């Protein structure tokens, strides 16, 4: 947007829109040109100046960005409202709108001023300096390991238990395997031709778990021996005793 144009020396403000950061910036600079406190500026005069400025810019065939024209239209509207007889219905009133514009200009001006004051302070690294070659501080985090005596012994017990598992397995589980049952039933039934109850083939035990296991494997053994033709199995009805005897044809 910046334009190199032959400007008349008496121009107070350069007719270069590129110099402004938008319409509000231009307005603020025009307001400052009134050389009074921003709270005292004449909004009407400001509107005049803005519109004149844009007209001047147009006369130099400058391209004028849309936002400058929008502002111009709004200001022209504000101006007409301020000059016309008051309409009590209008909300917000033209005076209220003018006051808001004034406040906005004051706000921007205040922040511009504040920025300049900040930049002018004694700044670290430009005006004041921290130590050039600090030794530096180090905070080393060190783990304070914690374990109790109980943890230690429990861990050792765990290790030992893990490394000697076989011993426990055999001692704990009371089971008559199928192979053992086949051998036992086969030996006991021998060549007897009279019927005997399955339970009579079981080993004597006080352990109910082992007895259950022995009963199950002996029953399976009886079925297996019957399949091979070594024994005969008979049951008179559901839940009746299971009877077992050697098969006659099998006799030597």
């Amino acid at each position: 947007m910046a334009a190199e144009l032959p400007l008349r020396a008496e121009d107070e403000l350069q007719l270069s829109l590129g110099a402004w950061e938008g319409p509000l910036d231009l307005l603020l600079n025009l307001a400052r040109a009134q050389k009074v406190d921003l709270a005292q500026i004449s909004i009407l005069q400001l509107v005049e100046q803005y519109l004149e400025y844009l007209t001047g810019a147009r006369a130099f065939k400058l391209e004028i960005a849309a936002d400058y024209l929008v502002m111009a239209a709004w200001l022209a509207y504000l101006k007409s409202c301020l000059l016309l007889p008051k309409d009590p219905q209008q909300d917000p009133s033209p005076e209220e709108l003018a006051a808001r514009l004034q406040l906005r200009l004051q706000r921007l001006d205040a922040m511009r001023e504040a920025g300049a004051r900040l930049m002018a302070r004694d700044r670290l690294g430009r005006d004041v300096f921290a130590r050039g070659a600090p030794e530096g501080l180090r905070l080393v985090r060190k783990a304070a390991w914690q374990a109790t005596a109980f943890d230690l012994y429990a861990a050792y017990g765990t290790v030992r238990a893990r490394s000697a598992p076989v011993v426990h397995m055999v001692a704990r589980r009371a089971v008559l395997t199928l192979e053992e049952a086949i051998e036992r039933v086969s030996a006991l039934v021998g060549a007897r031709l009279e019927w005997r109850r399955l339970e009579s083939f079981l080993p004597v035990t006080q352990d109910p778990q082992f007895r259950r296991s022995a009963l199950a494997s002996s029953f399976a053994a009886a079925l297996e021996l019957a399949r091979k033709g070594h024994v005969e199995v008979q049951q008179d009805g559901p839940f009746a005793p299971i009877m077992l005897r050697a098969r006659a044809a099998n006799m030597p």
Partner: protein
Amino acid sequence: MTAPFTRAVEATLFASEEPLTPDDIAAHAGPGDVRTALAELAEHYGGRGVELVERGGRWHFQTAGDLAHLLRRTREEPRRLSRAATETLAIIAYHEPVSRAEIEAIRGVQTAKGTLDVLMEAGWVRPAGRREAPGRPLLYATTQAFLGHFGLQSRRDLPGIDDLRAAGLLDPVDVSLGQLQLESGGEEG
């Protein structure tokens, strides 16, 4: 004779690469009354070529401001901020936490992409959560390093902040009103 603990605090602050909180100091200097030691040191260094200052709850030594003319010539000028960035920084500092829309409402122009980036890269501005309002806009605030760089003990030290607040110039900005009345689609210059 300086008290052993005060010496320890002095040495810790001298050796540190960064401003330290009293807790940081205690972690190195050991048990003692850090506050009292700091006050003692600040007084001792008052008027010397080096002084002890507090910046946002952190303490550090720095050269006295009135000696800037002697020291400045050896250093290259730190980053020069554009007018847009300077204004944006001031708006954030005086209004924080503040949204981008609020910054734009005050400045009357859209904020160019790089402006906030430059301030964050310098370590002076940080995102500070979101406002619980429609759109949940991201908010910006200044940092510890901002206070340190500009020599401010806290935000209360911002030049003229009390007067500006009293004049109502730091009141919350009505973003919607601003856009309605002074619509500006313009780019930043």
